[in-house]
């Protein structure tokens, strides 16, 4: 396709951006396009893909560090890590089912969207916290590196964090370096039926406030996996021999909320994979999906408001701090999400929606006026001709 540029290397990316700037023809920047349906459609005639920049360029298991070109599929990296019993600690999701396709996520796309799974609540933090270094091509068609390949680095402004979650609007990532962690030897789930969201979030808070190392804390909607009501699930991961005692202690701690059961082995692993990928929401492809980040104690009220506004399908992760909501792809529903999120002091992302909706509404919250000016100037500093993903974020 003439309107698709697929460079095989960094020099090709630089050349593509140089031409885009010279001809003033904006670019839709993507890896393989697995998250093309996120946020707003890009207003550009040409697509620049980093899908051709593949391969792991450095992997030192004993230093827990890996570098890969931006187009390397996440699954390929995870397979290589598995051979050394290591993982990307943030547990990045595989959203193919949610977006209804079979396109693999690339590592560059994952970093550019800064998506983390259930383990984000643990001490390892978000994907952006594990981003040690980047190479990117800016809108000046220049190669810029930030960070490096060592775990601790505070040299200069942290452009890694700025680029993580910038959705390709500030630079084209060509290579990323990540901090790794050992793959936990085993995991199991303490599952507690709860009467409602408020009790559920309270139970998750109790678990997360315990010293047993909870590495996942979610609230499943009624009906999922055959449960009659909402189910609070808490994951423990560590060496297998440590888990039985901790699970017992956690169940004891939660006994005031009710009797908790155990889900073990593959069943537990599958549950957290589904949660990571927001799989329960994948059905009904014409519905909109919002991803809302909120203070956990504000989640029940937020969910109540959404429920009142439309028939919301809800999934809570991060101890209640992450609310996935699915509902009708209407401006009214979106208004309700914006209002409820603002009231809760949180932030939303219109994660998936049919084009007419995502073209018409703000897909992200508006920034405070002072930050808006700064955002415009930062964008101009990195992409003065505005050739990178115009319209994607606002």
């Amino acid at each position: 396709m003439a309107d698709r540029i697929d460079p095989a290397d960094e020099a090709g990316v630089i050349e593509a951006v140089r031409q885009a700037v010279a001809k003033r023809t904006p670019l839709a920047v993507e890896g393989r396009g697995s998250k093309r349906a996120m946020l707003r459609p890009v207003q550009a005639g040409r697509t620049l893909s980093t899908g051709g920049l593949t391969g792991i360029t450095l992997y030192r298991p004993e230093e827990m560090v890996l570098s890969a070109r931006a187009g390397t599929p996440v699954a390929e990296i995870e397979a290589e890590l598995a051979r050394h019993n290591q993982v990307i600690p943030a547990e990045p999701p595989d959203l193919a089912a949610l977006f209804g396709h079979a396109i693999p996520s690339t590592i560059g796309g994952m970093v550019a969207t800064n998506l983390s799974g259930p383990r984000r609540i643990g001490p390892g933090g978000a994907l952006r916290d594990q981003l040690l270094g980047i190479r990117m091509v800016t809108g000046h068609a220049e190669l810029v590196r930030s960070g490096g390949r060592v775990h601790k680095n505070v040299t200069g402004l942290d452009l890694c964090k700025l680029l993580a979650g910038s959705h390709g609007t500030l630079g084209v990532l060509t290579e990323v370096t990540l901090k790794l962690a050992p793959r936990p030897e085993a995991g199991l789930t303490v599952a507690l039926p709860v009467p409602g969201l408020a009790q559920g979030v309270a139970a998750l808070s109790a678990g997360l406030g315990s010293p047993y190392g909870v590495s996942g804390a979610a609230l499943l909607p009624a009906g999922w996996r055959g449960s009659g009501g909402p189910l609070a699930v808490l994951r423990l991961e560590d060496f297998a021999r440590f888990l039985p005692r901790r699970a017992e202690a956690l169940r004891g701690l939660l006994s005031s909320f009710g009797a908790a059961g155990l889900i073990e082995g593959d069943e537990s692993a599958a549950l957290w994979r589904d949660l990571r990928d927001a799989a329960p929401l994948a059905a009904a492809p014409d519905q909109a999906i919002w991803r809302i980040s909120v203070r956990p104690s504000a989640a029940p009220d937020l969910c109540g408001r959404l429920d009142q506004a439309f028939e919301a399908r809800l999934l809570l992760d991060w101890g209640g701090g992450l609310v996935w909501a699915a509902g009708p792809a209407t401006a009214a529903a979106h208004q309700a999400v914006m209002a409820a999120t603002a009231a809760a002091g949180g932030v939303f992302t219109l994660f998936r929606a049919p084009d007419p909706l995502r073209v018409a509404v703000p897909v992200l919250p508006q920034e405070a006026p002072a930050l808006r000016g700064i955002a415009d100037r930062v964008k101009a500093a990195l992409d003065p001709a505005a050739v990178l993903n115009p319209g994607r974020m606002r």
Partner: protein
Amino acid sequence: MIALPEPDAAVLARRDTILRDLCRLVPDGPFGPGVIGDAVRLRVYETDGLSAYRQPPLAVVLPTSTEEVAAVLRYCHKEKIRVVPRGAGTSLSGGALPLADAVVIGLMRMNRILEVDFDDRLAVVEAGVTNLGITQAVAGDGFFYAPDPSSQLACMIGGNVMMNSGGAHCLKYGVTAGNLLGVTFVTIEGEVVRVGGGHLDAAGYDWLGLITGSEGQLGLVTEVTVRILRAAEGARAMLAAFRSNEVAGQVVDAIIGSGIIPVALEFMDRPAIHACEAFANAGYPLDAEAMLIIEVEGDTAEQDDLLGSLAAICNRFDPISLRVAETAEQSLAIWKGRKGAFGAVGRISPDYLCMDGTIPTGELPHVLRRIGEMSDSYGLKVANIFHAGDGNLHPLIMFDANDPDSFRKAEAFGADILKLCVEVGGCLTGEHGVGVEKRDLMSVQFTETELRQQRAVKSAFDPDWLLNSAKVFPLEGNPALAPRAHG
């Protein structure tokens, strides 16, 4: 010596007016003056943890609220007066070093804990609350604030945010950036912006991530929302000593390779062991070339299990001695020497420079060998302390401050070490920041294009370069100073 820019004569000439105006903006309070202008009391603020550099500022203001900070910034912006933000002044890179024509904004009077929420596991505190103060406020309920710089008794959370500080336990718990939820940020124009809040992830650009570690270049932070964590059931340490740096380096690799991530994994070389032992009588093995302190967490049985596995790994490398703490007291004894390391080196040599590069951990033996050679050729002693799990190396270079030549040599030695860190794939600073100290070395790590890009991002926040100028970026490319620097 690193050059400081010529002060702006026009600003110096207006000093009296400026002081009068500042006094109106920040009145005296019950606990002391709002503005300090007399020469004697300004000297308290003339330096920070990099005490070889001294420069009294034009004035110091000590606001007690975000509104006062905003008013001072609005004023300085309008009058084009430079600003140096300051927390406790423990920066080891000269990050809080004043400039002669600058107003220092000290946050130490903003020291209230505003909110603690155990259910949401967060605390909202003012920028002048000390790092340890946060943990003390939540420890009664079994919680703590994870990043623990050795300066935690004194250093303030605002300074921690701006330096993205680390600590001995960041191998497991991460650095400051991963433990923040939000800040109240005041721009140079005096606009107050809430960035982040009680939630984990930003939607849109990650301003919190960019502000963290920005060394006062982008704006001031007046309030911080931190994550607090439930403390582990218990922790215990062990000590293992080896015949060579190489062997100790292999042990570190073997530990990480085993899948056990200790909460702390500290390395000391022979001079560091000797200095600490003389100071603390911790019972460190004086015949060792290298020593590791390894700490694990869990309940007693888990600690026993993990320490047993770690001891087995150490035993494969023919240790000179191996000491596994049986009790919390024995653990403290193992840590005692390491925690007093700076004081210990200070006793051998009252003056030392604490360097802070990071290297890929596999390069440790090579880097220590090269540092040893440099030590011989400069004729200056050095002791090395290393956060071995994450590659952060702290060589302490001893010199004599009464001998200018000795100081010059120490600075050159330090610069050579940092260049070596970059050469082997590491970086100039792992946790202490660039400040003035490493400002002129930035071009060793970054290309001119990369520096230009970083400067452009700074300019987006601070177009006139009034905030902490003459730090972080080499003077040549500094748009506010360059014309003057070239006459």
